[in-house]
């Protein structure tokens, strides 16, 4: 349990806990970005540099901004009129605590027996690229199709139908 792991874990936990408990939604999104940057730093500490940078590029650079835009457009940034937690808060929190208890018990009883002392594996970007092109080429193509479908689907779902009908015909 090195000091850098504890520091990064603290940053991640603070960020994600704030993301789920704050009242102001835009603060939630910004705290989520902090938590995701902490996670990316943890990935880099584990030796997966490519995944860490991809996490920053995709999550912080795109998903967080998308969530912020959605908050703007659905006017959720205005102060809340009622409670921010729904009426099922007690059972929801209980379920989450139970899940954490089960996972923690499984982790501690399963892995603390043997200390693992393998050397740090090297994952250069070239190896990742070679793996993508040889062993994982089918998932790569399927991901391409999935992303295309998601792009088209998101565009159609969010399109304003009223204005879409107006645009046909005259300009």
């Amino acid at each position: 349990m090195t000091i850098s792991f504890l520091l990064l874990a603290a940053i991640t936990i603070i960020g994600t806990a704030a993301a789920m408990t704050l009242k102001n939604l835009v603060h939630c999104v910004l705290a989520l970005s902090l938590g995701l940057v902490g996670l990316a730093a943890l990935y880099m500490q584990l030796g997966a540099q490519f995944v860490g940078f991809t996490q920053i590029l995709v999550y912080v650079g795109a998903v967080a901004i998308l969530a912020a835009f959605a908050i703007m457009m659905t006017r959720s940034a205005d102060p809340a009129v009622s409670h921010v937690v729904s009426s099922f808060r007690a059972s929801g929190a209980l379920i989450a605590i139970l899940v954490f208890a089960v996972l923690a018990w499984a982790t501690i009883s399963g892995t603390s027996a043997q200390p693992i002392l393998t050397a740090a594996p090297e994952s250069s970007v070239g190896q990742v690229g070679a793996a993508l092109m040889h062993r994982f080429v089918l998932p790569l193509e399927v991901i391409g199709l999935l992303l295309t479908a998601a792009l088209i689907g998101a565009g159609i779902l969010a399109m304003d139908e009223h204005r879409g009908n107006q645009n046909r015909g005259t300009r």
Partner: protein
Amino acid sequence: MTGHLVTLDQIFVVIKHWLLGFVPGALQPISSAILSVVPVVIAFPLLFAITTVLERKGLGRMQNRYGPNRAGWFGILQPMADGIKSLTKEDIVPKTADQLVHFLAPVVMVIASFLVYAVVPIGRNMVIADLNAGVLFFFAIGSMVELSVFMAGWSSHSKYSLLGAMRAIAQMISYEMPLVLASVVVIMAAGSLSTVTIVNMQAGYTGIWPHWYLFTPWGIIGFVIFMIAATAESNRCPFDMPEGESEIIAGYFIEYSGFKFALFFLAEYLGMFATSAMAITFFLGGWSAPFSFLTWIPSYFWFFAKLLTIICAFIWVRGTLPRLRMDQLMNFAWKFMLPLSLINIVGAGIWHFMPAGFTRWGVVSLLLALSCVLLSRGLRRNKWFHVRTYRFAS
């Protein structure tokens, strides 16, 4: 190269190793990091100061007037005057603004803008961090700038700043795709994501001509796409709709005054320098000299010469072209630049697999020229040119 010329080229590296000799062994890694970082942190803000004067005088001359010429000999001390002014101005924060986010937005932007310089190779053996995934690091940190733009626009709780921030983010996201795709061609050709490897692959010469990626058909198109996308990413004219000075006054940093405004200015210019530095690394051969008989001039001189040329080109474009409207901007990005950069990748692939000679030049150039012409025709097809009638014209 002879011994003295090698020393002149590597003089900063030699100075750094000499200074490291004075440091005890335990502190060596951190002192090495500090000694690498400090020159960059000094050099690029200095370049920023020079650029502000250069830009104002250049724009002034293009608009048939003098630029600032009061502050020193030909206005050379103007950045100092500007710095003192912004440091001593009152820092006004609106009462309904979100104080913490309002404070953090320029900080995050400046941090992100400074961080990207870690992977730029300024000279031979002169890079702060030779990362295995250097190019990915550059784009990842560059995408954090958009988050800080949103923070700045939203925290001021003012309609103009929010509108400017939304426009700025939409523009930045749209132009990030052609930017990344234009660099994918270079990564394909060099076979690595490390900036040092990319520059080393371009540092050879055949005869007197360098191996720069600019001197290939896909390189020329890639360079043009990259430069246009870089102009849009830094919100420079003709893409400065988000900070349109005549419309929404200053866009997303309208509620900032004093030093925070200067920090935004600094971050924007640093971003411009960083994308220019990456364009030099990708297409113009980094620190390598243009002709083989000029390699005796030090490598960092060539880097900064190329950087200054690109900055002058940015200033020239700012003084020449009118501003693009938002829908023109978006159409241009999605309907022209993105398909062209994808076809550029196909062209570079064809180039890689054909044998060297005039055939591959002809095939790839024909493919790219044809796609340019067809895409620009497609862009124009939806326009409806009305005859404008002005009601009160005589």
